[in-house]
């Protein structure tokens, strides 16, 4: 597919009679960049280039053949795009400068509408791709990683967007950066099928970024998982959040998120599957929560959220909360701890299930009491409390628990 696209682009470039030049040395590259007019294409042959900071201020296309290396020598930003309709394909950008004054990036773009960044490899850059004030950027199939030991403060984000819209971010791999994908004031964008792993802070982090879609991404083993804030109208579908393990790590942290949809995601083996506070009107359908410490930490500041047809399996705690008022609707989920019966065989348990246990309330209040987990005393307390709720929120109850797990995904997924 990408070859077809590349070919078409080349074809178009030729058809419109824009100049096309091929370079093999740093000098030639700099000369051609200077000479180029709007719409030109420069093909960079494989090799090691040290061009300094390349500033692209007219619509043009840079194509690497055989993955040419552009080296920032740990001093500078490599490519700065200040024009619309720029395309960057097939380059390997390594070693940008690191600065606490400037956000040096391997590719930085400002007001670069319809920027296309494809098939690049970005190694050990401070920021990977840094885009601001841009409409319709496409970031597709790039590999961005940082393999040197770095501290959170001395490294930037993999893909960083600020005040942009209609971006398309697909099939990228990001690892070793601060945040894998960072959005601030980014709207109407799609993030699809990315693999975000082992970043120092968050796999995905966004604020004030409305109406975006996150589909089929994998967020695995990031320092603190995924944290999203102050946003409404997002869709998160078929993502996998797994192995986000640590004392302040979350599969997904939702803070002030509203009117959104979280469906068919998998939360596997996280310390906290979903932690949510101040969030409203979110639909959580058909998600899998499996092997998490806390599957769902629903703070009392959340309201009108709907949890339906989710599977809760092998979590230490299914649901915890910090208050007794219940403003959310949890109905028709599968809980592997449910012990009720189904007399009329309609697949729905006849008695309700209370997913919050007394012990989980105690642990919320006194973390040190986690040491008594699985002790007989705790078992007795939980049992007594389940039947005669006094401390746990009485109304936090799934009145239609499913008897069998929903068949949501096959194991191979």
């Amino acid at each position, binding site marked *: 597919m990408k070859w077809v696209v590349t070919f078409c682009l080349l074809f178009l470039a030729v058809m419109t009679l824009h100049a096309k030049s091929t370079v093999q040395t740093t000098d030639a590259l700099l000369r051609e960049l200077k000479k180029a007019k709007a719409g030109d294409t420069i093909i960079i042959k494989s090799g090691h280039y040290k061009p300094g900071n390349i500033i692209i201020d007219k619509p043009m296309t840079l194509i690497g053949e055989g993955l040419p290396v552009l080296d920032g020598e740990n001093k500078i930003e490599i490519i700065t795009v200040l024009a619309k309709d720029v395309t960057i394909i097939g380059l390997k950008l390594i070693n940008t400068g690191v600065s606490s004054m400037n956000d040096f990036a391997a590719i930085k773009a400002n007001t670069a509408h319809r920027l296309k960044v494809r098939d690049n490899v970005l190694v050990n850059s401070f920021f990977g791709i840094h885009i601001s004030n841009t409409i319709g950027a496409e970031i597709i199939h790039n590999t961005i990683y940082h393999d040197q030991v770095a501290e959170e403060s001395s490294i930037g984000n993999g893909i960083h967007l600020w005040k942009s819209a209609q971006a398309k971010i697909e099939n990228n791999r990001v690892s070793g950066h601060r945040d894998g994908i960072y959005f601030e004031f980014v709207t109407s964008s799609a993030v699809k099928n990315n693999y975000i792993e082992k970043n120092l802070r968050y796999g995905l982090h966004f604020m004030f970024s409305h109406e975006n879609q996150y589909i089929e991404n994998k967020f695995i083993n990031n320092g603190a998982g995924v944290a999203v804030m102050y946003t409404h109208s997002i869709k998160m579908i078929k993502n996998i959040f797994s192995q986000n393990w640590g*004392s302040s790590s979350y599969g997904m942290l939702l803070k002030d998120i509203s009117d959104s949809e979280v469906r068919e995601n998998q939360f596997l083996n996280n310390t906290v599957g979903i932690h949510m506070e101040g969030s409203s009107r979110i639909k959580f359908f058909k998600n899998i929560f499996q092997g998490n410490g806390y599957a769902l930490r629903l703070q009392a500041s959340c309201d009108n959220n709907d949890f339906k047809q989710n599977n809760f399996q092998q979590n230490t705690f299914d649901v915890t909360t910090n208050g007794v008022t219940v403003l959310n609707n949890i109905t028709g989920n599968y809980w592997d701890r449910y012990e009720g019966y189904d007399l009329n065989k309609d697949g729905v348990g006849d008695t309700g299930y209370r997913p919050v246990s007394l012990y989980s309330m105690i642990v919320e209040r006194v973390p040190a009491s*986690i040491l008594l987990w699985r002790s007989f005393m705790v078992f*007795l307390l939980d049992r007594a409390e389940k039947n005669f709720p006094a401390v746990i929120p009485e109304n936090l109850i799934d009145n239609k628990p499913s008897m069998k797990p929903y068949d949501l995904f096959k194991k191979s997924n």
Partner: protein
Amino acid sequence: MTQMLKYVLQDVIRARFVLFYWLFIVAVTTLLFQLDSDPAKVVVSLLNVILLVVPLVCIVFTTIHFFNSYEFILLLMAQPIARKTVFLSQYIGVASSLALAFLAGVGLPAIAFGGAAKVLSILGIGLFITFTFVSLGFLAASLSRDKAKAIGIALLFWIYFALIYDGLILWVVYAFNDYPLEIPTLILTSLNPLDLGRIVMLLSIDVSALMGYTGAFFKEFFGNLTGEIFSLAMLSVWVLWPLWVALHRFKHNDL
């Protein structure tokens, strides 16, 4: 000593109780393996059995056994044999037969269902718990010359370690929850062999329980060599001190 050990073992086996104990554990382990294909979950369920049934059986059986063989012990005392030898052969005889029953009871089904590697840690913890509660059984027996009273003391030990102690910890952490409690709870839990065994066990199989700062703290402590040596040493202390006290009383009391 070997001769006496032989008599004690013969006696224990003739009582058939250990056989039933073994059969019970085999049945429970087999059932758990049949109900659940995931060995990790089997181990967690087994943990509950080990933390409740094993101590109860060990401590009660030991106490009863001591009083049942009381006359035999008196007879031995008439011979030129050191009291220490008599006592230790009793201890080793009872403890080893119970330990063997436990090992075979959990081990054989585990091998049969192919989960042997997963149950290794639980076997280790179970052994320590067996030895500890046999020691406590002898301690209970040495505290009273009345059989019923001694069994009462034994049951009290069991309830205390299995239930009351955890309630006390819960109360303490709840009451003092404004203070940093990591080190106090660490100390408190090591003062109960069942708690210590449970925590060591959980850290080795299911860390998902231990979260947050406390979890990280304990994982760091028990996860490294110092922690392992510490927990092993504490478990050994729990085997040895009741035994030592019981031996002391046995040596110096009138029989």
